[in-house]
């Protein structure tokens, strides 16, 4: 028999799941109906877009996995001051805005970037970073570090008994990798590959900034161009349907992977130093990763030091205020919805019910932000609403929906673990849902709550997809302001905004989980 407390947790979660599912179906119907009735003047070459996107996403995936495994391996083999902080920065890759990374690459490798400035006295120059190379490079910065952050705990968490056995057998470094590390890494790779491919395939801000024209555009960029540049809704909805179909196929293997990024770095069971040569190789890998992957982000910070001019612009302050308010709103909405779903999942005994509760949330993982906002855009048109008027609320709702899968995948294991350990005891003690929350859940999941809020805020802050369709003179976020500044060659303004976004993202991502962990434990 279901306890009263279980029912009280199932109902809100069920309502959120039903609401999320209904909204999704409504948006899909709107897109499908518009596609059926739409009149497309000039249809983009979808086959070519798919071909180019697949090549780009395939290369991004392969290189990200290779570098991700190498970086995780190198971190696992080395101990040095600041290791945990460095691992924390790896995790922050998940929330670093793509637009910021693209700008960082231009700052280092662009025509007037650091590298060309250094080479100029020798009469040398590197080719521009735009095009396929730049896109893949930017994706590697984000996805190789993301992969490393997910793979490192698998290496750090190897059982001490296995390490002792390996050490007693005097395994060579190569045999150690093949017999101990690789079996721990391999199961994660297919899911990781699927998700990196999906992220690269649906990439928007990076391709928009570094694409260098239609030759390298993804479906996302094509949708954006159809709506905002060609004013061709018919083409946009057809592209969106193709996009959704492909994302839906890719999402199946991608959901096999736990998306919870490790925030901090794991503990290593047993120190097993490598021979000096191997340790040097690990050190070289980390230095190279720092140079090639970290330098563009350092360039963003350095480039943003000349922020004096932008501070005098009212539009900058308006965009900052909008980004902060929208980010906080989206983060809170994602948290509340995620808690409702995760809490219901922890109370649901039937696996089918559990799946039904979380499936609507996870489907949003397959919904690229431009496609999602296209659904809202079409809905607004159909209802005769002014997109400028409702844009602010759409930004919050869309931001929350895009963060919801991450919120559910972060909170569900934590709440399910608590339920497994303390659920029966709490029921037998007749604790109310509020008491369960205040006394059991809140003190134990403060870190996860902070992480969900940070992800919700950062995703919203870095989003360019939704604001690209709903943005206007009166509604601008930091992302859209930066994009406009780049388009108008106001590089100093773009640099300042980019630095602010990067600092905000990393600070929020690193600080919030720790702050909430302390807050939650303070009362016990």
């Amino acid at each position, binding site marked *: 028999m279901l306890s009263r407390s279980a029912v009280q947790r199932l109902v809100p979660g069920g309502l959120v799941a039903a609401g999320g599912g209904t909204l999704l179906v409504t948006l899909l119907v709107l897109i499908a109906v518009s596609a059926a009735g739409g009149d497309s003047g000039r249809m983009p070459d979808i086959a070519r877009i798919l071909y180019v996107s697949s090549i780009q996403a395939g290369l991004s995936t392969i290189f990200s996995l290779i570098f991700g495994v190498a970086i995780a391996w190198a971190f696992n083999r080395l101990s040095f001051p600041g290791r945990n902080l460095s691992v924390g920065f790896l995790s922050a890759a998940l929330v670093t805005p793509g637009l910021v990374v693209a700008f960082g690459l231009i700052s280092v490798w662009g025509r007037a970037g650091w590298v060309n400035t250094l080479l100029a006295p020798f009469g040398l120059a590197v080719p521009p970073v735009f095009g396929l190379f730049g896109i893949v490079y930017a994706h590697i910065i984000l996805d190789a570090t993301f992969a490393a952050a997910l793979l490192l705990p698998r290496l750090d968490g190897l059982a001490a008994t296995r390490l002792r056995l390996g050490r007693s057998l005097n395994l060579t470094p190569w045999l150690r990798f093949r017999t101990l590390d690789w079996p721990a890494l391999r199961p994660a790779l297919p899911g990781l590959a699927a998700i990196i491919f999906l992220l690269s395939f649906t990439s928007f801000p990076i391709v928009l900034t570094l694409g260098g024209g239609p030759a390298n555009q993804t479906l996302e960029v094509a949708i954006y161009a159809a709506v905002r540049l060609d004013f061709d809704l018919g083409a946009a909805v057809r592209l969106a349907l193709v996009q959704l179909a492909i994302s839906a196929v890719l999402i199946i293997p991608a959901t096999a992977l736990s998306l919870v990024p490790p925030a901090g770095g794991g503990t290593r069971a047993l120190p097993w130093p490598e021979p000096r040569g191997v340790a040097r190789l690990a050190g070289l890998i980390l230095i190279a990763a720092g140079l090639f992957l970290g330098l563009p982000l350092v360039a963003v910070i350095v480039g943003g030091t000349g922020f004096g001019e932008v501070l005098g612009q009212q539009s900058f302050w308006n965009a900052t205020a909008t980004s902060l308010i929208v980010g906080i709103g989206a983060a809170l909405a994602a948290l509340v919805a995620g808690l409702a779903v995760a809490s219901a999942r922890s109370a649901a005994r039937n696996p089918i019910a559990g799946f039904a509760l979380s499936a609507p949330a996870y489907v949003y993982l397959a919904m690229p932000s431009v496609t999602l906002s296209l659904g809202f855009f079409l809905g607004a048109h159909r209802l005769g609403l002014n997109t400028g008027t409702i844009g602010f609320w759409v930004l919050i709702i869309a931001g929350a929906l895009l963060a919801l899968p991450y919120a559910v995948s972060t909170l569900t294991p934590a709440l399910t673990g608590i339920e497994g350990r303390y659920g029966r005891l709490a029921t037998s003690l007749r604790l109310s849902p509020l008491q369960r929350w205040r006394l059991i859940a809140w003190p134990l999941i403060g870190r996860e709550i902070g992480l969900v809020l940070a992800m919700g805020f950062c995703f919203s802050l870095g989003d360019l997809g939704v604001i690209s369709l709903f943005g206007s003179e009166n509604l601008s976020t930091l992302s859209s302001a930066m994009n406009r500044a780049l388009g108008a060659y106001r590089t100093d303004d773009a640099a300042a905004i980019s630095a602010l976004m990067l600092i905000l993202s990393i600070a929020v991502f690193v600080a919030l989980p720790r702050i909430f962990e302390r807050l939650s*434990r303070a009362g016990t």
Partner: protein
Amino acid sequence: MLELDGLRFAHPGQDRQYAFSLSVAPGEILGISGASGAGKSTLLDLIAGFVTPLSGSLTLDGQSLVGLAPEQRPVAILFQADNLFDHLSIDRNLSLARPHGRLPQDERDSSLEAVGLAGLGRRRASTLSGGQKQRAALARCLLLDRPVLLLDEPFSALDVDTADAMRELVRKLVSARNWHTLLVSHQESDLAMSDRRLHLEAERLQTG
């Protein structure tokens, strides 16, 4: 009297169907033995209301418990582990015996004294030893004072001396409070404290 009469249950998707019949008098400890996986914990889950029987009756002093949700049943439980919320103080754990009202400090203190933990109320549960945790959980059972006490191998994680002391304490409290007590265990030393024994085999209870 706690009575189970032909209480049947099957786990979803499994053919095995348990059928339980037993009675426990006030102040009596009924020991249930059986191999791992025999269904001992399932029996306690049925009485506590965590699973729903297919048929049969479950009554306490003639009142049916079958339709009651777990939180409405007059049952206190002592599990093998995780009887306390580790992140809370002992006092806070004890106060959960009255989740909807205030539990006076002197009641908490006297319950701790009764189980030999006087003065430890402000300690965080995670800092206590395994035996101390079980004693603190027993103190909460005292405060709950519900007529049915279910013991799910509560001594199996304790060392020999601590387990002996706990058994003696439980025996004393059950007699003093007239609790209808079911103890499931596969350890002879635990079962020796019971007044009567039944053995669970082939999904049925048999006289042990």
